[in-house]
């Protein structure tokens, strides 16, 4: 018997984040021959519903309200709970993003149910929906099931592959009305940091710099390499604290958790808090002048050397490779 699964489409700056499509893929697995219902919350999000259907959802439910223009836990919880009440899903999925992390425990508490946070995989085994999630700063993994009530999980971006988009898919898009009221937190100001281009948590290639980069200008060759490979620049806490770059680039336990195909760590020592944010990357390259640096322990390939020599050489070498290709 298939299940009805609702998956939250997360909208940022007017577009759906990739993790929403990954959520649809996870939802399809859980639903088996059941139904995948996308949920969109916001002030003007209806036009995005079709994208969730193209990504594999069967239909979409939308709650639109001016008060949902910006995220608040109260507003989004009221909207989402209105959808849950109408749809009565057997499973709910969010992305494990700032929004998902903030909202999911409140919804779980309201529904009196369990919640599996930060899943990197989901499988249906012998009738159980089994989630895999990293624990102990990524040094171990656990498989977890929900034993009572709604199956609720948040999924880590860039881990569950989205389904092939199918533009011919169609599905119903309906509205649910919810009374959004008594918001107890008010967002006074949002200071967006200059993150142009590729979203770090969704990037396939990341070139990250640490304290070894030594200055703001030191990041320029890293940026050049990232641009060349269609990737994004990230950083360690060390580089952020030294003001070589903005905190929005920080990768690790406190910053973003990333799972790119290729992670190139330049002048990063490899503290556990940093590893917690990137050790799941498919291929890790370390460039560090200290052969004893911890980062080499998780690296697939390492070059012991000065990043200011190595990175420009890499740029040249990749350029000639890309020309050949």
């Amino acid at each position, binding site marked *: 018997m298939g299940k009805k699964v609702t998956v939250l489409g997360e909208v940022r700056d007017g577009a759906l984040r990739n993790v929403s499509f990954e959520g649809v893929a996870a939802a399809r697995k859980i639903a088996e021959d059941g139904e995948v219902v996308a949920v969109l919350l916001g002030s003007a999000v209806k036009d995005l519903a079709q994208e969730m259907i193209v990504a594999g959802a069967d239909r979409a439910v939308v709650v639109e309200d001016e008060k949902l223009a910006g995220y608040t836990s*109260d507003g989004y919880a009221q909207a989402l709970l209105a959808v849950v009440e109408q749809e009565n899903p057997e499973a709910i999925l969010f992305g494990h993003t700032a929004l998902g992390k903030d909202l999911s425990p*409140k919804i779980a508490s309201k529904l*009196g*149910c369990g919640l599996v946070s930060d899943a990197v995989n989901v499988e249906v085994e012998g009738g159980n929906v089994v989630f895999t999630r990293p*624990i102990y700063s990524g040094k*171990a993994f656990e498989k977890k099931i929900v034993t009572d*009530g709604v199956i609720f999980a948040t999924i880590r971006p860039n881990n569950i592959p989205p389904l092939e988009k199918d533009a011919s898919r169609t599905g119903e898009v309906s509205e649910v009305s919810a009374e959004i009221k008594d918001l107890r937190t*008010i967002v006074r100001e949002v200071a967006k940091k200059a993150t142009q281009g590729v979203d770090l948590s969704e990037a396939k290639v990341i070139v990250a710099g640490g304290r070894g980069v030594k200055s703001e200008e030191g990041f320029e060759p890293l940026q050049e390499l990232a641009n060349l490979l269609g990737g994004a620049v990230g950083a360690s806490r060390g580089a952020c604290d030294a003001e070589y770059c903005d905190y929005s680039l920080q990768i690790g336990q406190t910053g973003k958790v990333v799972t790119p195909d290729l992670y190139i760590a330049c002048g990063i020592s490899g503290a556990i808090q940093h590893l917690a944010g990137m050790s799941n990357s498919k291929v890790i390259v370390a460039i560090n002048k200290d052969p004893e640096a911890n980062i080499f322990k998780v690296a697939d390939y390492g070059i012991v050397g000065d990043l200011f020599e190595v990175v420009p050489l*890499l740029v040249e070498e990749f350029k000639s490779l890309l020309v050949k290709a």
Partner: protein
Amino acid sequence: MNIFVLLKRTFDTEEKITIAKGAINEEGAEFIINPYDEYAVEEAIQLRDNHGGEVTVVTVGNEEAEKQLRTALAMGADKAVLINTEDDLESGDQFTTAKILAEYLKDKEADIILAGNVAIDSGSGQVGPRVADLLDIPYVTTITNLEISGETVTVVRDVEGDSETIETKLPVLVTAQQGLNEPRYPSLPGIMKAKKKPLEELELDDLDLDEDDVEAKTKVVEIFLPPTKEAGRVLEGELDAQVKELVNLLHKEAKVI
């Protein structure tokens, strides 16, 4: 001001992790205050010093957590409470922990509750918001700044690197992000004083809770270590040649470019 801190004793993940009998091996491991909870304790102490009142640190755990509670007292907290589940519960999850904490807090008239944004061991980040919901008070997660003036609370929140300034009112629950403050080390006089500070121990019975009320909603079915990575390849030779080899490996062997 009546200030509460939710504190978890955690495994120090700097340590090597091994598995014994299907569980993380705790034999001989180092245990610490969850680092994000240290920020919460520090902020609580500063709040008390500026606004007056009392800081109570609360843990759900077993007797071994007394050590971490004493450390928080040595930092400057006034009272500690250990809700000891050792005799009553065999398993639990975030639902369990949040329910117990909320049950304890519900009649305490807390003005503010501080927690860590995430525990570094099981790492779900659920407990803070769950407790706030059960107490029906607002919450703000991953905060890097906190100001209280009268009933008005202004916090700066880290949202994937962007910062949001949020206004709300007491009572409130906040969860600490790195950058909120620099936690102090306990001083020697602090450690001496901590020995005489009250550390109350409670059990589920004292909170009028039954096992059934807090039964976990999730279950861990397996714990495993990631497949041991083959030792990475540190390249050798002239730098030029190393770079060529690396690009070639990424292209042909790893196939990521």
